[in-house]
């Protein structure tokens, strides 16, 4: 059975070119780039070249503004904790309810340390309300941290506009964006549309580089205090011997993604749209989350009413299809995903959300196969559901009053 991997917002297959590029640094060119002898020049140069490549890909200009880290979670932690440390006079942070936990949980920690955090809401399509954002800006606002594209739904936030409004309000407010999901998929120019962004995070393994490497763009002059000490690496902003091989991998993968972005974009969108319309046609009572908002071309998040996501994934797995779900049962918590809840996806569907996220390595045959099996899986699970009218193949008329609206029947 062929494996059909459609969970690329979780991680991606390393590109063959990336694998080739990093090999020398895991074999003959293993030297510490900080060492003085001649052989160490090669890995040291590789880091310099990689930094320049990354800077070019994101329009950063001066490459010294690019910091290599171990992952996007580290980049996000550095951005939030580092700016809070460096600016004790300001005590207010603005973020959104749908951020990745590596931002949300840091914000909760900042609250425990005495800062105030405003969590912006989203509408049922996943869009932010710009008016709510404007009203949230305060004289003591330290940082705005708003993701570029959402990992669960692919919904894109207008970072260009939000960062401009922020800086026009007060140039001292720091603007951070988590671009982990959009990097390589959407154009990012830190001297162009993104000129008002001070800090930008992303990781390698979402764009066909290995896991264990990420980057943080820090615009020159941004007050951000390091929290890893004990080495001069990365200009003293991130101590620790550089992960040379993976840094090379990150730069190679990003260069590849940017060079074929438009081509990949069209390809992914055509696959996604075909999958989306076929499923929408065949499956009754299914909603497409984020449909009313601008979205990444590779992401499809569907919610099937009256069935549960984990059992869907289990059945997909039987067919060799790897996807993910916002269901409570897949997370170890008992709530469905915070993104589904924030978008007010009804409880009847939030537990049944499934995310398909494609990459350039997916084929039209993969999509065909999903279209072939997914509607049947949904139907078979609905046969088990107490909320389904099996004769007419639709939700029971009393589905909303049956069990559902009264959690107190325990």
């Amino acid at each position: 059975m062929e494996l059909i991997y459609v969970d690329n917002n979780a991680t991606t297959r390393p590109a063959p070119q990336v694998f080739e590029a990093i090999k020398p640094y895991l074999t003959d060119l293993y030297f510490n780039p900080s060492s003085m002898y001649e052989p160490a020049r090669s890995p040291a140069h590789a880091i310099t070249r990689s930094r320049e490549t990354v800077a070019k890909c994101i329009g950063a200009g001066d490459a010294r503004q690019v910091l290599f880290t171990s992952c996007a979670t580290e980049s996000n932690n550095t951005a939030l904790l580092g700016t809070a440390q460096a600016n004790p006079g300001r005590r207010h942070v603005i973020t959104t309810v749908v951020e990745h936990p590596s931002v949300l949980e840091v914000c909760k920690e900042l609250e425990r340390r005495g800062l105030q955090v405003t969590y912006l809401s989203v509408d049922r399509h996943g869009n932010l309300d710009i008016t709510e954002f404007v009203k949230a800006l305060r004289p003591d606002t330290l940082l705005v941290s708003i993701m570029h594209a959402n990992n669960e739904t692919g919904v894109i936030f207008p970072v260009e506009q939000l960062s401009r409004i922020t800086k026009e309000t007060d140039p001292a407010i720091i603007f951070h964006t988590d671009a982990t999901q959009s990097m390589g998929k959407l154009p990012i120019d830190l001297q162009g549309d993104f000129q008002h962004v001070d800090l930008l995070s992303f990781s390698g393994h979402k764009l066909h580089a290995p896991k264990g490497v990420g980057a943080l763009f820090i615009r020159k002059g941004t007050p951000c205090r390091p929290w890893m000490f004990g080495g001069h690496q990365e200009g003293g902003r991130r101590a620790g011997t550089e992960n040379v091989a993976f840094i090379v991998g990150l730069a190679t993968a990003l260069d590849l993604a940017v060079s074929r972005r438009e081509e990949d974009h069209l390809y992914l969108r055509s696959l996604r749209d075909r999958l989306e319309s076929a499923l929408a046609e065949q499956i009754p009572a299914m909603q497409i989350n984020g449909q009313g908002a601008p979205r990444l071309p590779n992401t499809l998040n569907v919610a099937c009413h009256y069935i549960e996501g984990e059992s869907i994934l289990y059945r997909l797995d039987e067919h060799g299809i790897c996807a993910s779900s916002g269901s409570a049962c897949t997370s170890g918590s008992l709530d469905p995903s915070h993104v589904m809840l924030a978008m007010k996806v009804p409880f009847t569907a939030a537990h049944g959300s499934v995310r398909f996220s494609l990459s350039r390595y997916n084929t039209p045959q993969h999509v065909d196969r999903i279209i072939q099996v997914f509607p049947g899986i949904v139907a078979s699970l609905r046969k088990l559901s107490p909320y389904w009218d099996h004769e007419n193949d639709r939700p029971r008329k009393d589905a909303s009053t049956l069990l559902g609206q009264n959690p107190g029947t325990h």
Partner: protein
Amino acid sequence: MPWDYSEKTKQLFMDAVQAKPGTHLGEIEDPDGLGEHGSIACGDALRFTFRVRRHPTDPLKDVITEARYLTFGCTSAIAASEALCYIIEEGGFTPVQALGVTNDDIVEFLEGLPDQKIHCSVMGAEALEAAVFDWAKRRGVALDALGVDTHDDEQEEGRIVCNCFSLSEPYIRRKVRELGLKSIPEITAAIKAGGACMSCHHVPGGLQDILDQVWGERAVAPSAHAMVVEALDPSDKRSSQLSPYQFSKKIEQAIAKYVNPILLDDGGSMEIIDIKDTLVYCRLHGACATCVGASKTLKMLVERTLKERVDERIRVISV
């Protein structure tokens, strides 16, 4: 995230999904006992029905012959429902005997369940109990008289401790005792209480207090979070003599009088989103909103007007 299920659990799930002969998916029409547990809000729900072979004179000698379920839930919830039906049908129980079937029996039948899935087995046991109570009502059997705890009124009279899952204090207390739950994670794993917002963990009368009362020992409470909630003074730096209200009124008037007529000529209008000190946030509507040069035009036009008419420090930000 690999699935940590036993072969038995996976087997029951797959059999159920494929509706193999001998599985128990469905609902008995006009059943002798019907019980429900869970809700869609909680992520899983079970509707359990059974039929008995009625004894001509003594309802207590009725024997359960057939059991069916409809389940909304994850792999293990569906497998647990299957397991419940197998146990009940194979046992040849009277309904009162069936009350002796516990969630442990279901877990055993499934050859084990991951900790965070224990609640699936509890759901089965609860639905069974509810179905037996339903049977008793239909058959006119007074379970109370037999010494069965029907804990009828616990939900009605009980104070709700876990708001997320609507679980009352008597219910939680009973489950803590019955299932021998010794910690908050154990409670959450078994009956979900405290599993969502978690605010009931350490509040007065919350889960920890219930544990302490039932087991009579004081667990170490985690250090309280240092929460600083201080209202910030929303900047009173306006040096103009006008109150904030007067200031914004004056801006609105200037825009209505000098700006909107010009925009209207082009089929547009302008909305003030917010005013902070001397910053005025505006949004264009109508034809102007899609015009390429609009935001720059707006900024220049509105800013110049407001500087002249209201306050020279005003800056306009287009939103």
